[in-house]
């Protein structure tokens, strides 16, 4: 698949006098996994929130599946899903109840089967009847990912998906995401501070700094451009630069 799934044009976000995102333009093709990287405050999360319609851009346009997000929010979000390590599902509902609610919201055809399949996939089937608030943070993260895959999204948006996972589970989650992407042709846009995630998972990386894109390409291309063999070095160099343009 090569068609453009997500197109961001001249996106701007001002909060009063503060510019969170400035003149951001990029696109994501079908089947790609794109990493949105940058230090805290670089504008990644604000960008993701604008792509999901949670925050209204000051200027610019977001087009997903060829439709304008502001005009066709509901039909677009039907084919999108989202998970973040910092967003939870209602803590006093059981795992299966939470997933049933979202399966209904997304209109999943066979919710019972789908829920069982996802719980098995993320190795939390034994927690099906456990109250969500009683799960460890790693288990909650996997539950969030189950929620995010309920509707077999054509575009999956992830905000630091492995932030609370140990290296073993993070590795498993990366492999699951890669497998689902291969099987379903899913497109993924993800933020992460875990460079291993990025190198292993992402086909392409977009580095943001002070609200703008400062580097774009595969991890190898970016490391070559910065003359290093470590993406972490690139990250640190960009994060410590005071200017918007990286030499």
């Amino acid at each position: 698949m090569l068609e453009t799934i997500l197109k961001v044009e001249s996106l701007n976000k001002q909060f009063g006098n503060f510019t969170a995102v400035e003149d951001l333009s990029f696109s994501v093709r079908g089947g790609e996994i794109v990493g949105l990287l940058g230090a805290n405050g670089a504008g990644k999360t604000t960008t993701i929130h604008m792509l999901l319609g949670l925050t209204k851009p000051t200027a610019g346009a977001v087009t997903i599946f060829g439709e304008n997000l502001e005009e066709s929010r509901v039909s677009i979000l039907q084919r999108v899903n989202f998970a973040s390590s910092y967003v939870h599902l209602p803590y006093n509902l059981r795992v299966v109840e939470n997933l049933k609610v979202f399966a209904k919201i997304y209109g999943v055809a066979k919710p019972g089967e789908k829920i069982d399949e996802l719980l098995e996939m993320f190795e939390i089937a034994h927690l099906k009847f456990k109250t969500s608030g009683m799960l460890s943070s790693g288990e909650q993260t996997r539950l969030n990912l189950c929620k995010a895959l309920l509707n077999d999204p054509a575009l999956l948006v992830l905000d630091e998906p492995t932030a609370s996972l140990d290296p073993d589970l993070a590795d498993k989650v990366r492999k699951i995401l890669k497998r689902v992407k291969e099987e379903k042709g899913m497109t993924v846009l993800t933020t992460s501070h875990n460079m291993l995630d990025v190198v292993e998972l992402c086909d392409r990386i977009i580095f943001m700094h002070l609200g703008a894109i400062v580097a774009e390409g595969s991890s190898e291309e970016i490391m070559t451009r910065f003359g290093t063999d470590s993406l972490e070095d690139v990250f640190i160099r960009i994060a410590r630069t005071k200017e918007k343009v990286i030499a």
Partner: protein
Amino acid sequence: MCWNRIYALIMKYVYICSRNTFRAMDIFFWPIMDLLMWGFVTMYMLKVSNTVPGLITFLIGAVIMWNVFYRAQQVVCISFLEDLWSRNLLNIFTAPVQVREFVTAAYILGLMQASIVLVIMSLVAVVFYGFNILDLGIYAGMLLANLMLMGWALGLVATALIVRWGPQAEVLAWAVPFLVQPVSAVFYPISVLPQPLQVVASMVPAAHVFEGMRALMTGNEAIVWGHIGSAFLLNLLYLAGAGLLFRFLFEQAREKGLLAKYCS
């Protein structure tokens, strides 16, 4: 509008209530306590002085009806707050849920909770005080429906303010009914209010409902329809206003990135 999504939102809140003893107390415990306390106060007043005819029916009827309004208003706010408290708001608003579906689900929940409270309180009133709300006949339904509409409108206003000002405004979920209670003429007629407040009260649907209820109980049926009509028209106006306010403040929250901020 998609009724499956509305059903899912209702299902979520029902699950939450069934797992939360304190939330269930809003339905079963507090309304009964309210009724018992006012009932015994009324019985004491009747013992001391029996100068107001039908005092027990006035007060018990008022307590039941006020609870219908209060619970309908409260659940509209709390269904939103539950998502805020559990950091689930982003999951809801990144799903294909329309704002009007969210509001419709909250209204239906308000109707469900107020109906349960009404049934429970009515039964307790029959058992303890021999007061049967069904004695008000067809009018009871009209009066209660108006209180429900006003509960929805005020619940939506309070939710809109919480959307805009965040968790620091959550106290409004419980406080808003008490802001309007003095001019709602729940336990006394509008005529006892000072003149300027009488003007304010005449613009409050609940005041018309309670005036109508008292007129009905004193056999003055002729003026009940006037009160029901006034309350209905005011409710339509306030529901439309509440909808516009919610939409405006929701969009402001989106512009300021507040929906995301509350959950991070």
